C-alpha cells in the first residue's frame, strides 16, 4: 500500500515533521461550533481546558468567539503560522478544509470527522480525494474517522481528542485504530493509575499509518513501551520490517498488540484453500511472531504486561522468587508461575542461611518463602533483601494477605526501600481490595507494579519473558538455498495463467530441489508401457490435462499397477472414460512414475495474500487438516528456524514423530521442502497458489517424495 509520507529515519527529533502533529506550537481547530456536547465543540474545549502550552485558534465561520476565544472565519485569516490543524467539519467540506490547510502551509492535520471509507464506496472516493490533497501539499494526515491525539508531555499538554480528561504522564504510548475503544481504554487506565506518554487514534489511516507512527514512537524519548490496537492490517510486510527494527537491538522498545477484526481481503482469502483452513488471523499471528510483537488477548493483559515493562528493569532470566505471608497464595502463585513458563528459583545456600537467621522457625526458607501470617515489616524486608541479593534469582514477586496484625503501609514502604537500587524487577500482589489500598498506593507511587492476584503478576512476567527471549534470539539473516532458478523460469515465464500441467509443475519443483520422483509424460500406449518397464513396478499413471484439476473424480489416476498388462489396461480405461465424461478436455498425455512407498502424508501450501504477500502453510494430511484444522503458517521465504517452528508447531506432531510404534517421518526433510517451496513462491510473483498435497514423508533414511502438486499462475 502507498505510504504517503515516508520520512528518512536520519532526521533528528527536533525537526521531525510529525512533531508538527505531536508537539505543535500552534493549533487551529477547523469547524468549531458553539454547542457543548457536539464533537466540534468538545474537541476544541478539550484542547483549551487541558492547558495546552501553545496557541489555539478556533476556525468557526459566522462566530465572533468560541468560549471567549476570538474565532476566525477561515484558516487563512489567522496571521500566525499554524503547525497543526484539527478538522471537525462534516465530511462533505473536509476537502475544502484540507486544501486551505495546504494553502496556509499547515503540515500536520488530524481529521476527526467520520463519513469516509467506513460508510461505503462514496466515502472511499472522498477519502481518496483527501489523500490526494495531502500528497499535493505534503501534509502528514492522521485519520479520518479517529478520536485524535494526546501528548502528556508537560511541555506540550495536548489533548486533541474526545477523551474528557487527559491521562497522567507515563512511559507507555498507546496506538489505537478504534476511537471508541480508545476512550474506554483511557478511562480504564485512569482507574488503574496508568500513565501515558502519547495516545494516538489513527482511524482509517488514510495518511500516516501505524507503521509510520511506530517509527515516531521508537524515536520518542518519552516512550518506553508501545501498545497497539489494530483492526486491520494493510501492509503486513512493512509492519514486520518496522517492528523488527524497533523491538531488537540498541534502544529496543517492546511492542504489545491486540488485533481484532479481519482484513477486507479476509473474505477473499477464505474462499481459497490456504485461507479457509485457518483464516487470516493465523497468518496475522505469524506476522506478529516474526516481527517480535507480543500479542495479548485482552486490554487487561495489555496493561498488566505494559506496567511491568514500563516501570521495572528487564529480568536477566526466567527464575522467580516468591515471598508471601500465607501458604495458600504462595502455592497458587507457584502453580501460576510454572504454568506460564517461569522457573522457581533455587536459592543459593547463603540465601537460605540468611533467611533462616531472619525468620521464625515455622517459616519456609525455600522458594516460595513464607514469612508467616503475623510477619511484621522487618521480616518482609529481610526476606526481600536476601532474595534480591541471590544470583540465582532473576525477579521477585511479593505477596501480602491482610491479617489483623499486618502493618500494610509499613510493609509497603519497607518493600520500596529495600528494592530501591536493585536491578531486578519486582512485582507485588497485596490481595484484597479495601484494607490494602493505602499500601498499593505507596507501591504505585514508587513505580512498583501491583496486581490484585498473584496469577496476574505471573502472566505479566510471562509477557516480559517473551520479550526478553525475543531479544535474546539471534537474528539470522535469511540464507537462500541453492536452487536452479533459471530452470524454473524457463517453465514459468512462457506458461499461460492458470494451473501448470503436472509435468511442468513437477519440473519447477525439481528445479528448486524438491524430491520429485522420476517421471515422464507419455503420449501413447506404447511409450507408457515402455517407460513403466524401464522404471520397474509398481507404477502410477496420472492423466495430464489443463482442463482436469480433480483427477481422481474423473478416474484420471491409476495406482499400484504391478505389470505391463495392468498399465496397458489402466491406460485405455483412463483415456476412454475421460473421452466419455469430459470429451472437450485436452489430454497432454499420461504421467508415469513409480509408486511411492507409504509414509506420512503432509501438506505444503503456499498462497499469495494481498496483505501479507506469499504465505506458507503446513499440516499433516487427512483428518488432521480437514477436521482439526491443525495447520501452521509462515511468511515466505522462511529460514531454518521458522521451518522447524512450523513443522514442529502443529498439534499432531506426534503423528510425525512416530507415535505408538510407527516409524518417525523425516522431519528435517519436510523442513527442507517447506523452505524450498517458500523460496520458490517468493522468487516468482506469478505463482498465486501452490499446493504439494501430499508430500509423502518416509523415515529419515528414505526421505520425502512429492506425490501430487498444483501450481496456479497469475
Amino acid at each position, binding site marked *: 500500500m502507498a505510504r504517503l509520507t515516508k520520512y528518512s529515519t536520519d532526521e533528528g527529533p527536533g525537526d521531525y515533521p510529525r512533531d508538527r502533529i505531536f508537539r505543535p506550537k500552534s493549533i487551529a481547530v477547523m469547524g468549531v461550533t458553539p454547542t457543548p456536547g457536539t464533537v466540534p465543540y468538545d474537541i476544541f474545549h478539550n484542547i483549551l481546558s487541558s492547558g495546552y502550552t501553545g496557541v489555539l485558534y478556533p476556525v468557526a465561520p459566522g462566530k465572533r468567539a468560541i468560549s471567549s476565544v476570538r474565532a476566525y472565519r477561515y484558516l487563512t485569516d489567522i496571521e500566525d503560522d499554524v503547525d497543526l490543524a484539527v478538522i471537525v467539519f462534516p465530511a462533505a467540506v473536509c476537502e475544502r478544509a484540507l486544501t486551505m490547510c495546504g494553502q496556509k502551509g499547515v503540515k500536520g492535520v488530524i481529521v476527526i470527522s467520520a463519513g469516509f471509507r467506513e460508510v461505503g464506496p462514496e466515502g472511499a472516493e472522498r477519502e481518496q480525494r483527501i489523500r490526494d490533497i495531502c500528497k499535493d501539499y505534503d501534509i502528514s494526515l492522521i485519520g479520518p474517522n479517529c478520536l485524535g491525539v494526546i501528548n502528556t508531555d508537560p511541555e506540550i499538554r495536548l489533548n486533541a481528542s474526545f477523551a474528557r480528561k487527559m491521562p497522567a504522564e507515563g512511559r507507555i504510548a498507546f496506538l489505537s485504530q478504534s476511537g471508541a475503544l480508545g476512550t474506554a481504554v483511557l478511562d480504564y487506565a485512569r482507574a488503574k493509575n496508568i500513565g501515558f506518554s502519547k495516545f494516538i487514534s489513527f482511524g482509517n489511516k488514510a495518511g500516516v499509518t501505524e507503521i509510520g507512527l511506530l517509527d515516531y514512537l521508537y524515536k520518542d524519548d518519552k516512550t518506553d513501551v508501545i501498545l497497539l490496537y489494530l483492526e486491520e492490517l494493510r501492509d503486513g510486510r512493512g509492519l514486520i520490517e518496522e517492528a523488527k527494527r524497533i523491538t531488537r537491538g540498541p534502544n529496543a522498545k517492546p511492542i504489545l498488540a491486540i488485533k481484532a477484526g479481519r482484513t477486507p481481503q479476509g473474505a477473499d482469502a477464505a474462499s481459497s484453500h490456504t485461507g*479457509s*483452513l485457518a483464516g487470516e488471523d493465523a497468518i496475522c499471528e505469524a506476522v506478529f511472531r516474526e516481527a517480535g510483537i507480543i500479542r495479548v488477548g485482552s486490554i487487561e493483559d495489555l496493561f498488566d504486561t505494559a506496567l511491568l515493562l514500563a516501570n521495572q528493569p528487564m529480568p536477566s532470566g526466567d527464575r522467580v522468587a516468591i515471598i508471601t505471608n500465607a501458604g495458600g497464595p504462595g502455592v497458587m502463585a507457584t502453580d501460576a508461575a510454572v504454568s506460564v513458563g517461569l522457573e522457581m528459583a533455587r536459592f543459593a545456600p547463603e540465601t537460605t542461611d540468611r533467611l533462616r537467621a531472619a525468620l521464625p522457625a515455622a517459616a519456609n526458607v525455600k522458594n516460595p518463602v513464607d514469612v508467616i501470617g503475623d510477619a511484621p515489616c522487618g521480616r518482609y524486608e529481610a526476606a526481600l533483601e536476601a532474595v534480591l541479593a541471590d544470583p540465582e534469582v532473576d525477579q521477585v514477586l511479593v505477596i501480602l494477605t491482610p491479617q489483623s496484625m499486618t502493618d500494610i503501609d509499613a510493609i509497603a514502604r519497607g518493600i520500596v526501600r529495600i528494592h530501591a537500587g536493585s536491578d531486578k524487577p519486582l512485582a507485588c500482589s497485596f490481595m484484597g481490595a479495601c484494607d490494602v489500598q493505602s499500601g498499593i498506593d505507596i507501591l504505585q507511587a514508587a513505580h512498583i507494579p501491583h496486581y490484585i492476584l498473584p496469577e496476574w503478576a505471573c502472566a505479566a512476567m510471562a509477557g516480559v519473558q517473551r520479550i526478553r527471549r525475543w531479544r535474546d534470539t539471534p537474528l539470522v539473516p535469511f540464507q537462500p538455498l541453492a536452487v536452479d532458478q533459471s530452470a524454473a523460469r524457463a517453465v514459468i515465464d512462457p506458461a499461460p495463467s492458470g494451473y501448470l500441467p503436472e509435468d511442468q509443475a513437477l519440473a519447477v519443483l525439481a528445479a528448486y530441489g524438491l524430491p520429485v520422483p522420476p517421471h515422464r509424460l507419455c503420449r501413447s500406449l506404447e511409450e507408457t508401457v515402455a517407460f513403466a518397464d524401464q522404471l520397474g513396478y509398481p507404477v502410477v499413471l496420472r492423466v495430464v490435462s489443463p482442463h482436469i484439476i480433480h483427477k481422481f473424480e474423473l478416474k484420471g489416476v491409476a495406482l499400484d499397477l504391478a505389470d505391463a498388462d495392468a498399465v496397458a489396461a489402466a491406460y485405455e480405461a483412463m483415456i476412454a472414460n475421460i473421452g466419455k465424461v469430459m470429451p472437450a478436455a485436452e489430454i497432454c498425455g499420461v504421467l508415469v512414475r513409480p509408486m511411492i512407498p507409504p509414509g506420512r502424508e503432509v501438506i505444503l*501450501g503456499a498462497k499469495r495474500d494481498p496483505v501479507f504477500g506469499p504465505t506458507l502453510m503446513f499440516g499433516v494430511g487427512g483428518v488432521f487438516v480437514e477436521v482439526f484444522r491443525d495447520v501452521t503458517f509462515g511468511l515466505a521465504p522462511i529460514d531454518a528456524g521458522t521451518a522447524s517452528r512450523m513443522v514442529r508447531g502443529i498439534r499432531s506432531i506426534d503423528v510425525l514423530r512416530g507415535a505408538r510404534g510407527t516409524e518417525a517421518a523425516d522431519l528435517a526433510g519436510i523442513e527442507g521442502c517447506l523452505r524450498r517451496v517458500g523460496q520458490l513462491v517468493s522468487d516468482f510473483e506469478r505463482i498465486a497458489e501452490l499446493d504439494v*498435497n501430499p508430500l509423502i514423508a518416509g523415515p529419515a533414511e528414505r526421505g520425502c517424495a512429492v506425490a501430487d502438486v498444483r501450481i496456479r499462475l497469475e
Partner: protein
Amino acid sequence: MADVKTPHPLVDTTEPNLVEDVYPYDLPPLIEFEGPVVETIDGRAVEFDLGAVKDRPIYITDTTFRDGQQARPPYTVDQMVHIYDLMARISGPGGVVRQTEFFLYTKNDRETLDRCRALGHTYPECTGWIRAVKGDFRLVKQAGLAESGLLTSSSDYHIFHKLKFKSRRQCMDSYCAVVDAALEAGVRPRCHLEDVTRADIDGFVLPFVDRLMEMSRGLPEQQTVKIRLCDTMGFGISYPGARLPRSIPKLIYKLNRECGVPSDRLEWHGHNDFHKVHANAATAWLYGCDFVNTTVFGFGERTGNPPLEGAVFEYIALKGDLCGIDTTAITALAEYMRSIGLPIPDNYPFAGRAFNVTRAGIHAGGLRQDERIYNIFDTAKLLGRPPRVAITDKSGTDGVALWVSEFFGLKGGEQISKIKCAKLARWVIDQYEVEGRLTAISDTELEAKTRELMPDFWQKFK
C-alpha cells in the same frame, strides 16, 4: 489441499428480505421448529416433537390473587374484581387464560369470589386454594367451587424440616388422606407438588404421583387429580441434557409418560429467582404440560412468577394466531396497576412506560424511515402503544419530527417532515443549551409548544 468448507455464496438482491414469515409485524414474531429434540432419559434417547405445541390445547392459568398477593399488601375487593374483569378480556372467548385461583378464608375472600363470578365470564374459571387440611374442604364446597389446589410439598426440605414428618411414608399417607377427603367431598384436587425441583424424584415424587393416579382410576374425568409442578425456588432448568431434579423436560416426561398423568392434568408453576421464569414456563408447555401458571406482570412471592402477559405473547408466537386474545387489555391492566400504586419498571417488556421508547437520535432516524427497524412488532395495534421517542438533548431534528408524527397519530405519507418542525426542534435544543436543562421533556410540554409554535398544524391535527 482439500476444500473442506461449505461454501456460502452471497445471495445478492436489491429487494430486502424482511423475513416476514417469521416477523409478520401485525403479530408477535413467530416461533417455528424444525425436527425433533432429543433428550437422553435414563440412558435412552427420547424424541420430543416441540412443534406439536401448535396443535395441542395449551392454556394459561393465573394466581395473581393467591401467589401474587403473597408478595404485597392485600388488594381491595374492588381492585380484584377490576383485575379479574381485565383478565377476562385478555383471555378472550376461547379462554386462553383458563383459570384463576382465590384464597377462601375471609369474608372478603368470599365476597371477591362472588362478585367476580357475578360478572358472568366463562373464563377464567374461579378455583380455590387451601392448605392440605381436611376441614378446609368445607370452604371449597361452601364457595361452590369445583376444584381446589392443595399443598402437597414434595422435597425433603419441606417434608422433614418444614412439616416435621418422621418419614416419607407418614407424609405420603397424610397427603393421600386429604386427597381422599377432597374426592369424598366432590371437589377436584389439584395437588401442588411444592419444591419439586429439589425433591427426590424417583424416591418420592413418582411413587406419590403413582398413588394419586391409582386413586383417580375409575373416577369421572372432572374429578380426577391434577398435578401442579411447583418450582418454588426457581431452580428449574430448561436446557436439554440437564439432570433431574432440575430438568423440566425430564420431570414432565416422567410424570406424563411413566406415571401416566395426561398433559391436560399437568400444570407448571415457576418462580423467577434465577431470571429463568418465563423460559421455564414456556419449556413446560413445549414438553407436554398443558397449563402454565402465571401472575399479572409477574408479581409474586420474592422474585415473582411467570408474567401473564409474557405467556400471552409466547402463546400467540407458538400458535401463530391471536386465538381471540385481546392483547390491548394488557395495556389497560398496566395502567390500572400503576393507578393503584403497583410499580412497573419503565424498561419492563410490553408494559413499562419506556418499553418501546427510543432515546438515541440515530434510532429515531431509523424509526422515522420505517418503524419496524426499531419496534418489536406492531405495538400500536397489539398494545395500543405506537413506538415513541423520548425528547432529550440527543434527539435531534429527526427525533422531534418523529415525536410530532407519533403524538398526532400521523402514519406513512402523512408523517411530518423535519423542516416543518424546525422551530420546535430549535426550542428543544435551546432548552438544553440556553436554559441549561438536564431532564427529558414531557409530552405535555411538547404539546403546548407545538400549539404555540406550529398553530396551523395543531389546529388541523389536535
